[in-house]
């Protein structure tokens, strides 16, 4: 569905006025390659300024790259703009495609004409989306009067009315409360499952990725650091699992052979370990009388943070070259 090879995009950033002043070349995306198959949901992660939105803008035909090959459904996005955008839907979290002063349903009706959706198909989709996203209460409200969550839902409906094969979501849940986020995730999952819509999604909310994407790509400073299953990211780069032990009494020596001591606070001692929990538990119970034991899984959040901060994968990526 999407093939990207050696994508590079730089921006010339001006310092100072038009006549005097210099310009600096900013490499927003450098040498990025990946492909996305039909029906996949891919989470695209990276810290601020990593190059996520720039990639999406190239894929949607808004930006022309410096070099690299990009095809989306067989088309080159920036060469065949109209045919390309007819097949995709895009939601940029901070903006709306709706007409600001028109009631939502009038905006959707206008888009029906822009995309030339047959009347019957439009009615059907509108009915489905109204139900799934609960648009009913605000279909007659102008976009400017919608809450952020309502506007997001209306924009999602607007992006899908023409049955696109592809959906680009750039921070679709930014600024929303938990319930609103959950509703949007549920909807995206639904259209992916029932309509085979391929989804590429950037976000800073790992909840989005955990709920939606089996595959993640991580980009930083314009380079892809990781592309693979979310689960193996955790296995490969996650911090160790944690064993939290409450002893009957504070042990004189909390050290247990084969386990990493993470910390001790009176009778509560924390150990790090990898692999299955059975052996560490046996070792701990043999060490001293135990009242309670809990196994804590490392958080994906922490894993990603470690990757951003430590450049954990950047070193690995450099080694591969």
């Amino acid at each position: 569905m999407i093939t990207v090879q050696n994508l590079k995009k730089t921006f010339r950033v001006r310092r100072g006025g038009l006549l005097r002043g210099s310009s600096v070349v900013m490499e927003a995306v450098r040498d990025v390659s990946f492909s996305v198959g039909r029906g996949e949901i891919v989470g695209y992660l990276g810290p601020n300024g990593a190059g996520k939105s720039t990639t999406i803008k190239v894929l949607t035909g808004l930006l022309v790259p410096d070099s690299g090959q990009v095809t989306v459904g067989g088309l080159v996005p920036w060469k065949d703009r109209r045919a390309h955008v007819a097949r995709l839907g895009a939601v940029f979290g901070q903006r709306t495609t709706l007409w600001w002063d028109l009631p939502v349903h009038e905006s959707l009706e206008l888009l029906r004409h822009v995309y030339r959706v047959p009347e019957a198909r439009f009615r059907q989709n509108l009915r489905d989306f109204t139900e799934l996203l609960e648009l009913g209460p605000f279909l007659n409200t102008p976009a400017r009067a919608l809450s952020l969550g309502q506007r997001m839902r209306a924009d999602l409906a607007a992006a899908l009315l023409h049955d696109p094969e592809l959906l680009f979501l750039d921070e679709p849940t930014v600024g929303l409360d938990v319930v609103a986020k959950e509703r949007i995730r549920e909807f995206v999952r639904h259209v992916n499952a029932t309509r085979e819509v391929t989804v590429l999604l950037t976000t800073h909310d790992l909840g989005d990725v955990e709920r939606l994407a089996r595959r993640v790509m991580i980009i930083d400073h314009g380079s892809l650091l990781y592309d693979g299953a979310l689960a193996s990211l955790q296995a490969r780069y996650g911090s160790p699992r944690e064993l939290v032990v409450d002893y009957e009494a504070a042990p004189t020596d909390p050290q247990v052979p084969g386990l990493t001591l993470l910390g001790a606070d009176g009778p509560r001692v924390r150990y790090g370990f990898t692999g299955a929990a059975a052996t560490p538990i046996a070792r701990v119970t043999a060490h001293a009388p135990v009242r309670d034991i809990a196994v804590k899984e490392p958080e994906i959040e922490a894993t990603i943070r470690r990757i951003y901060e430590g450049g954990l994968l950047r070193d690995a990526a450099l080694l591969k070259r």
Partner: protein
Amino acid sequence: MDKSSISRPGQREGLFSSAVYHLHLYFLLLRAQARSQAVYRLSFALDAVGSALITLAEFAAFALVIPRFGTLSGWTLGEVALLYGLAELAFVLMDLLFGGFDAPNLSGHVRSGSFNTFLLRPAPLRLQIFGSDFALRRITRVFLAAGILAYGVSASGIVWTPEAAFLLAGSVLGMIAFFGGLFVIGGTLTFWTVESVEAMNVLTYGGRTLISYPMDIYGQFLRKTFTYLLPAAFLSYFPVLHVLGRPLPDGLPLLAAYLSPLVGPLMLAAAFAFWSVGVRHYGGTGT
């Protein structure tokens, strides 16, 4: 689910059905604009009255002054009204049509991201811009301009021949295209820098004011510039001279009076060529 039933834009289709689709879409976009503006009723009414008052005051100024002196460089009030009405009518119609390309509006779209929204829709970009800022409140000025023009036509005693009608209509069309072209150029410049907008405004609004009056009142230098360098004199001055049965200056051939519907569209075509360059530049920078 039947996806194949949606005809994709960009597919081969008849020229006629494509034209109908585009015209219909343009109409729908204009209607959306009108409906949006109707929300703000009071400001709409104030704008409508206010902008008409400006035109009225401008015209009233020489309507009061000229009769005192008899003529303005040999032009009666009726003849000046003819020239002024033509320019005003064309400029207001142009403003309505080309509002989306006007630099402040276009750079607003670029900054707010709605320009990206246009690019993400499978309709022609220019069609969407044409349908993006339809300032319906200017409609009062259209009527006022038509009124001034009508007065000018009757007061200057024009003999209505098909030729005169052709010359005047051609003049209006030529000016719409010409000034539309200036709007497009001004809007396109904002892809690079908004600092250029002021300079462009001097040209657009200055040019408009300039051709609202008989060129006889200007010095040689200005007159030559606006004849041969920026061919604004071809737009309304020459056609009106000819309709009034006066000779063209510099011994120019009569043909020069008929060139407005050619000069305007040429300007517009050049402007749209520049526009394409601007859009390509936008694809490189995204701002």
